[in-house]
């Protein structure tokens, strides 16, 4: 329990750092972007919205510390201000529309690549020196060298544009999100395949190689020789003795990977015009919409922190040593 409390305190601290960076960045960078933004938009916006914009940025005459407190309060209430590119729209509404799709794509691809990668790694180590063990590592290394968005471009070109196997973007066929029926879910899954496949393909390598190396370590332990000597069936030795232990480093890596996969996924979404947060991020960048950009940074960071916390909790369930308080 102490371990979980410690981790929670750490993530709260990390979230606090991210929020603080977000607050000071527009105020401290040379050229004072916050004032520049207000100045840029002063010709296109009316007096009322300009005042709203100023307030959203906390560009009041209050002292900096006062502004900071107001900002913290706004964040806690989920008020991220208004989008500049889509003016009166609330930034939080734009994000709410995209986050579900990002989480769907992210969860699907992280879980798939974790399961497939670990299985392949275990197989490679079990059949050590076999054809698969020799071919898989370099192939996966090569795929892992592709930047996410480049593999996305290639797959999009072949499967969506040339072969027309998968749709050219979006998350569903109709104008509005489909109803929660069998055909509606099928439609969403059909649109999910190509972008999820991209993310899985790029992120598969580390899972496989880490699992393989961990398995090789575990396979040389005495207790495995004992299990073999006891006459246990190979399948039993593999699953309940070797894989279970070798999986731990991969579970630890799961937390760290979520951030990385999410970053790569954002770019994949752009290529497939998948309506998640990555797509919003690109729109924010090209329209120089600072409030939206900053809010996306915060939301994505907070989601990744939450995911990490969940993984830590999961780890306690898997590793008895941490429960006993030796780890952490």
């Amino acid at each position, binding site marked *: 329990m102490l371990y979980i409390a410690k981790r929670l305190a*750490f*993530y709260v*601290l*990390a979230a606090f*750092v*991210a929020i603080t*960076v977000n607050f000071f*960045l527009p105020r401290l*960078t*040379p050229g004072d*972007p916050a004032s520049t933004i207000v100045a840029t938009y002063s010709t296109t916006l009316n007096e009322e919205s300009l005042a709203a914009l100023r307030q959203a940025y906390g560009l009041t005459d209050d002292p900096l510390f006062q502004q900071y407190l107001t900002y913290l309060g706004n964040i806690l209430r989920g008020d991220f201000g208004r989008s500049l590119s889509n003016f009166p729209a609330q930034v939080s509404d734009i994000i709410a529309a995209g986050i579900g799709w990002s989480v769907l794509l992210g969860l699907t691809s992280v879980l798939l690549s974790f399961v497939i990668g670990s299985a392949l790694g275990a197989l490679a180590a079990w*059949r050590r*020196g076999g054809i698969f063990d020799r071919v898989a*590592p*370099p192939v996966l*290394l*090569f795929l*892992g*060298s*592709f*930047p*996410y*968005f*480049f593999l996305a*471009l*290639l797959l*999009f*070109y072949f499967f969506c*544009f040339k072969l027309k196997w998968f749709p050219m973007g979006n998350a569903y066929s109709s104008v509005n999100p489909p109803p929660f029926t069998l055909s509606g879910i099928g439609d969403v899954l059909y649109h999910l395949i190509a972008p999820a496949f991209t993310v899985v393909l790029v992120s598969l390598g580390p899972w496989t190689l880490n699992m393989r*190396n961990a398995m*090789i370590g575990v*396979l*040389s*332990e005495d207790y*495995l*020789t004992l299990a073999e000597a006891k006459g246990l069936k190979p399948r039993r030795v593999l699953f309940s003795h070797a894989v279970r232990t070798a999986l731990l480093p991969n579970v630890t890596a799961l*937390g*760290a990977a979520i*951030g*990385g996969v*999410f*970053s*790569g996924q*954002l*770019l994949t979404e*752009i*290529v497939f015009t998948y309506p998640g947060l990555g797509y919003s*991020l*690109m729109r924010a*960048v*090209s329209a120089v919409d*600072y409030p939206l*950009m*900053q809010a*996306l*940074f915060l939301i*994505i*960071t907070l989601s*990744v*922190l939450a995911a990490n916390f969940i993984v830590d909790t999961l780890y306690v369930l898997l590793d008895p040593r941490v429960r006993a308080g030796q780890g952490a």
Partner: protein
Amino acid sequence: MSFYETFGKIRRQALGSVPVLVGVVILVILVGSTALARWIAPYNPTRATGGINEFPSWAHPFGTTGQGQDVLSQFLYGGQNTLWIAFTIAVLTTLLALIVALTSAYFRGWVDDVLTLVTNVFLVIPSLPLIVVLAAFLTPGPATMIMVLTITGWAFGARLFRSQALSLREREFIAAAEDVGERRWRIVAIELLPNMGSVVAAYFVNQVIFAITAQASLEFLGLGDGGQVTWGSMLFWAQNTSALIRGAWWTFVVPGMAIALTAFSLALINNAVDELGNPRLRADRLLRKAGFRKPSASLMTPVKRDA
């Protein structure tokens, strides 16, 4: 094992194994050709010298872009920009990570606690959104690129080097040095640092890969300097001129493959460096050479694991 011995071993192993050789050959060709861009590039990379999205031909071996520029010339000049920026970022992040880790190892106590906490916070905050926000507030250009990616890219190295330094500290020769009365900075600089050679080398190679990919990602998002030709900006323009839907695959396959091949060759080289640090992976190869097809668990040499 001293620093130079480590590199001697790398060379011996590298020459004996084909994958590493493949990596070195690809890397030399890529770095060599881009370094000679000024002399071998057929055209000015930013000027329109042909039709729009022309299929590869004798005049334009890699085709032309949506703005009529020569893709081969862009590839050569762009590689130059991409690679020196990536190299600089790799050097800076490795140095920063080493400084943080060795400061931790030198002062120990609360300094170590604080630095570890800062490192962990940097590790857990997802990099791409942070990079995007940082880059968006600064004027685009190589200096911004280098600064932003250095700030966001050092943390994993600091953690890696710190744990390496901590495990080295438990060894007898450090205890001996302490008993002899060597000063602490001397132990860190003369005893610890040289022994971290292979880890630092592997990390550095990884950082070059990180820098190339992260740089390309930022430029692809449109946060690079639009006027400068790099592999990432080539991809940005390919996406922006809808090269995909017009079927001009050469405009994104060339820079994309350049990035992927550079990263792949570095990863191959890195794997060899990795085997040096992990005797089990090495033992595997030796056993295979000796004729064991599937080494049984008991044949493997047990290795003392570092805490």
